[in-house]
């Protein structure tokens, strides 16, 4: 009899996931396992720790407690869809898929279900056009801003003339890695540099032939769109062929401590783009320490605090929390819905005064979102790794990117999507 009732309990538990309606629900599609865990863990920890802090310090947002529902995706699209289906009924306010592949998969699904997606600095670039993608946001910057920022940085180093220079793109052979190609091709026409493309297949542990090719072709600069284990392998391989590190520039996803530390001193001088400041010299971390770390409530092993990707995860959570505040103000109720959240995100504005109030002075540039622009201002900085002190240092401040080229491409790509899916572009 005991066994039977236990079985019944387990079975009902499996089948029925009770919706929690009294909370603000943030599903976190994380990956703490697999070839991408090295990048996934710090981000997941940062995301969940910030919400824990809000719960402990302020009792949630606007008096409503926050519930973070973690679901393991292993950076795998099918598992990501499973996680989406599992969590969407819980009252999910916004999805942060933390993977370009899963974002592509969820864009049509979430748009049909009316739940916003925030793919912060990844995902489908043309989603910056809010008239075609009302439910998808990719502020503060997208891959095409990134591609342009890399070229701008190289232009700056060469006094504005890079005609005839060779730039190689080492990229993850997936939708993610292919995103910048179109922009880089446009920019190569505009500035007259030579572009060579070197795809690296999932999971990215095998890059010997790509770096052999780089050794043979001797490009002046190498840029990289990598993720997970691919990053550290690439930096190690670059060190092995003695490629000058200061000419190797990664996207913001290829610039965390976990990517450069394995190569040791050889990684010194490696550059990466940045969406926000590195390090822990911010007053916010005092609150985090007091309410989360000291109470033993940190997510994961708690060993990623203050790393670049941890800060990125925290930044995602901060922007989500700020959007909730806007939504609460605009809808006049504290228990908001996904539709309110979308409006909140579309009207989100964060300036330096607010960053200071949040305890993050000079953490990131101003941000303002509108229906026409779901992608933010697209300001990108450059950071450089100092292997001796094991620290990232900012070497170029947040600067605008080539919006003439990017806006044209965004309009083109989103128009093609709208046509394919019979969407009439309009503001909601």
């Amino acid at each position, binding site marked *: 009899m005991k066994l039977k009732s236990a079985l019944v309990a387990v079975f009902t538990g499996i089948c029925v996931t009770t919706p929690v309606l009294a909370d603000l629900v943030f599903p976190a599609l994380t990956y703490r*396992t697999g070839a991408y865990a090295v990048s996934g863990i710090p981000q997941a920890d940062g995301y969940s720790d910030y919400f824990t802090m809000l719960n402990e310090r302020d009792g949630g947002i606007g008096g409503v407690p926050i519930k973070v529902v973690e679901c393991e995706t292993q950076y795998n*699209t*099918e598992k990501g869809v499973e996680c989406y289906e599992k969590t969407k009924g819980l009252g999910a306010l916004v999805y942060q898929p933390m993977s370009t592949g899963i974002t592509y998969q969820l864009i049509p699904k979430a*748009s049909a279900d009316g739940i916003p997606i925030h793919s912060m600095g990844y995902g489908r670039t043309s989603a910056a056009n809010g008239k075609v993608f009302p439910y998808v946001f990719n502020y503060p910057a997208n891959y095409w801003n990134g591609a342009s920022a890399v070229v701008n940085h190289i232009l700056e180093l060469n006094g504005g003339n890079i005609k005839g220079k060779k730039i190689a793109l080492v990229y993850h052979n997936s939708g993610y890695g292919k995103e910048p190609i179109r922009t880089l091709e446009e920019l190569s026409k505009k500035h007259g540099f030579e572009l060579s493309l070197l*795809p690296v297949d*999932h999971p990215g542990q095998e890059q010997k032939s790509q770096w052999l090719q780089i050794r043979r072709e001797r490009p002046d600069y190498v840029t990289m769109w990598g993720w997970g284990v691919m990053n550290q392998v690439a930096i190690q391989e670059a060190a092995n062929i003695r490629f000058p590190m200061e000419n190797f520039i990664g996207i913001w996803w290829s610039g965390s401590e976990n990517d450069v530390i394995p190569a040791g001193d050889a990684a010194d001088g490696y550059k990466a783009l940045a969406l926000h400041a590195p390090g822990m010299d911010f007053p916010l971390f005092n609150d985090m320490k007091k309410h989360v770390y000291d109470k033993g409530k940190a997510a994961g092993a708690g060993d990623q605090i203050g790393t670049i990707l941890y800060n990125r995860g925290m930044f995602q959570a901060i922007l989500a929390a700020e959007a909730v505040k806007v939504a609460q103000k605009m809808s006049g109720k504290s228990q908001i819905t996904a539709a309110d959240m979308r409006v909140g995100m579309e009207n989100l504005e964060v300036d330096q005064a607010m960053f200071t109030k949040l305890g993050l002075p000079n953490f990131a540039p101003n941000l303002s979102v509108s229906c026409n622009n779901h992608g933010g201002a697209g300001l990108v900085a450059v950071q450089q790794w100092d292997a001796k002190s094991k620290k990232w240092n900012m070497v170029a401040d947040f600067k605008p990117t080539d919006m003439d080229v990017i806006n044209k491409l965004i309009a083109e790509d989103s128009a093609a999507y709208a046509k394919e899916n019979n969407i009439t572009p309009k503001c909601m």
Partner: protein
Amino acid sequence: MFYREAGEFKTSYRADQQTFPIRLDKIGFILSLFAAFVIIPITMSEYWAQAVFLPFLIFGIAAIGLNILTGYCGQVSLGSGGFMAVGAYSCYKLMTSFPDMNMLVCILLSGGVTAFVGLIFGLPSLRIKGFYLAVATLAAQFFLVWMFNKVGWFYNYSASGQITAPERTLFGYVITGAKAETVPVYFVCLGLLVFLALIARNLTRGAMGRKWMAIRDMDIAAEIIGVNPLRAKLTAFAISSFYVGVSGALLFALYLGAVEVGEAFSIQKSFIILFMIIIGGLGSIFGSLVGAAFMIGMPVILKNLLVSNLGWPGDIAAHLEFMIVGLMIIIFLILEPHGLAMLWSIIKEKLRIWPFAH
């Protein structure tokens, strides 16, 4: 004496040779069809449909396909993922080139294209066997994935290299694209699975299946008694690839909606389908389905049990899943090389002579 075949006397060859000669089996089959066509669609939730039932139906077709080749004809293949990709990309090209084409026709044609590709990659099987053939099919896997990544024509030169299924309807119901309804999609997959499983069952117990099995058991002996190895092996490759291609087309068009070849059809898929037929049972249609159900259902049930019920961290549950799958494969290879299907036969045997031990 729960399960018995005594007392059933057949008076014609026709009755004796039917698919389910034993009345209890037939009742069980009809009951499970009733459950699949009536009870499950009424009771299933969106989540269980998306997480378990649809992938089970789709991978069930692929498992039957691989079982025809590996289980019945004895040709090991590690190229299933690549062949699924052929199905998916042909389906995409057909959907975008002929927007008015009926979806069922499109899916079956994609299977046809895959059968042709499988036929080409099956040609080396005449000369090479065993491990060497496995490596040759592995080459097919890598070549096909590379090709779909490299040649822009296959993905209509989209910037991300992904293929996305446009919206299509069948009998007025939307079955592909973002607005696809779960129940019609379920019925399309279920209908195709039942139809293809019945065909496979009939193929494998007919002349063709006997030739395949003769080749599997000893190819030289089969050749001596008059089985043409060229035809037997190539038909196995073509028919198997047809099934795998249909499954790939369904996975892309009806289930995922958008696909990136390197991830969706990687070598991982080939392994999972191989594990399905090893755990389920080589040379058994029933085994293919049980194996698919196990490989699809187990991770989801484990995840729900450990993470949602017991509150374990998701990463530990994910790691545990790897260990359990690995352990199951080793256990099955040692204790029951014929898989879950054989276990079921043993259970039937026990039920037949119950309450006696012998």
